[in-house]
């Protein structure tokens, strides 16, 4: 955690890499190059672009390499558009890491199924790194990833590497495809019925648009995965990130402090309430 959770520490841009037409990954190092920022998979940082604004962005890097902060995000507004234009050695403010992450350690002994939709793969990547680093502790590990088109596939090279591993099952699908794509076509939920995991001993980690997560949960439940073994990462408008301001209040919880990762049985009563 940064020294004072409300005061950003300066970090420098090492590299900005475009992943797809509208997403990019930033690699940052602390301004003096000496202060690693340990984090848990699923946590997020508040990134402050001085003079422009501050945004919450989940960490997409390897938890075993806390010296480099990696964030993958989509250009969707003023701050992220300006971030895309950052150059190596430019300075950013970082507060964090915040929130509750994925239950990677708690899932030991079980099969793990990761279901990611669109840029939802970014906050799940650290979990996958950690799972693979301790691969012997888990049963089957399955990644189901769905996105809009083949051009929107994130971390393409890494997905190919993961796909070639014998201890990881990777299935990618796109909603729409033309031309040379020979992979799966269809929404990510269609991959769940035939995915190779034991539903009675599985922990599911799900991240993506909320509608996609609702339908994913339905499919997981149909397969027999218990609701208390399903975890979702939620998104709301986060400002202070420490549970003070109430911007991200979701029923009795604050997404920033109690989440963003929640066990589904905690969310279940809230997810169908439109006013929340």
């Amino acid at each position, binding site marked *: 955690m940064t020294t004072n959770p409300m005061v950003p520490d300066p970090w420098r841009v090492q590299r900005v890499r475009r992943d797809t037409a509208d997403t990019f990954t930033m690699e940052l190092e602390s301004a003096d190059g000496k202060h690693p920022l340990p984090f848990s998979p699923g946590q997020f940082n508040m990134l402050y672009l001085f003079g422009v604004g501050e945004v*919450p962005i*989940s960490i997409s890097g390897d938890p075993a390499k806390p010296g480099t902060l990696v964030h993958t995000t*989509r250009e969707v507004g003023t701050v992220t558009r300006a971030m895309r234009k950052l150059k190596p050695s430019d300075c950013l403010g970082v507060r964090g890491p915040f929130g509750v992450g994925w239950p990677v350690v708690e899932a030991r002994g079980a099969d793990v199924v990761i279901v990611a939709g669109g840029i939802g793969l*970014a906050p799940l990547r650290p979990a996958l790194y950690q799972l693979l680093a301790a691969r012997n502790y888990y049963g089957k590990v399955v990644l189901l990833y769905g996105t*809009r088109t083949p051009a929107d596939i994130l971390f393409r090279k890494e997905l190919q590497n993961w796909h070639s591993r014998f201890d990881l099952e990777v299935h990618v699908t796109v909603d729409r495809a033309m031309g040379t794509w*020979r992979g799966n*076509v269809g929404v990510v*939920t269609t991959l769940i019925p035939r995915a190779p995991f034991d539903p009675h001993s599985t922990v599911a980690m799900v991240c993506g648009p909320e509608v996609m997560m609702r339908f994913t949960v339905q499919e997981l439940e149909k397969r027999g995965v218990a609701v208390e073994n399903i975890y979702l990462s939620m998104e709301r408008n986060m400002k202070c990130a420490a549970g003070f301001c109430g911007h991200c209040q979701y029923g009795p919880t604050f997404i920033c402090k109690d989440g963003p990762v929640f066990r589904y049985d905690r969310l279940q009563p809230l997810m169908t309430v439109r006013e929340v």
Partner: protein
Amino acid sequence: MEIETLKTLLAEHPFVSGLDNRYIDLMVGCATNVRFQAGEYIFREGGNADQFYLLRHGRAAIEIYAAERGSITLMTVGQGEMVGWSWLFPPYRWLFDARALELTRAIALDGKCLRRKCEEDHELGFDLIKRIVQVLEQRLQATRLQLLNLYDVRPQPAEAR
């Protein structure tokens, strides 16, 4: 011997999972084992829909052809799934193309033969229709989600702006 093997293959397929043994026996009489090479058409739009397929291995694409865009893949199906329901409804013509994306093995069921058996035994017919409707429901659900263009709506959970 061959029929026994086919019966075992049929009984193992998720589409008929839990189906009464006597109905599996009835279905075997309408079934044949088939395989398609990668790129080979399983059926083509406008052709006679006289069969449907239970995929045992491999993957297939359901496609539609548009002159200005070529073949457009609507969805892909794989092992354990069912392909084709036009054999159930007049005029029994395929509405789309189905093409094997890789070596695909399947059990082909003769639609005409099965329709006759379903007419003779409504219990079999009802059970079979329930299974097909379940597949249709899943496909409809998936199509609705596809139409929503989900990934355009919101970016990532921790990313707000």
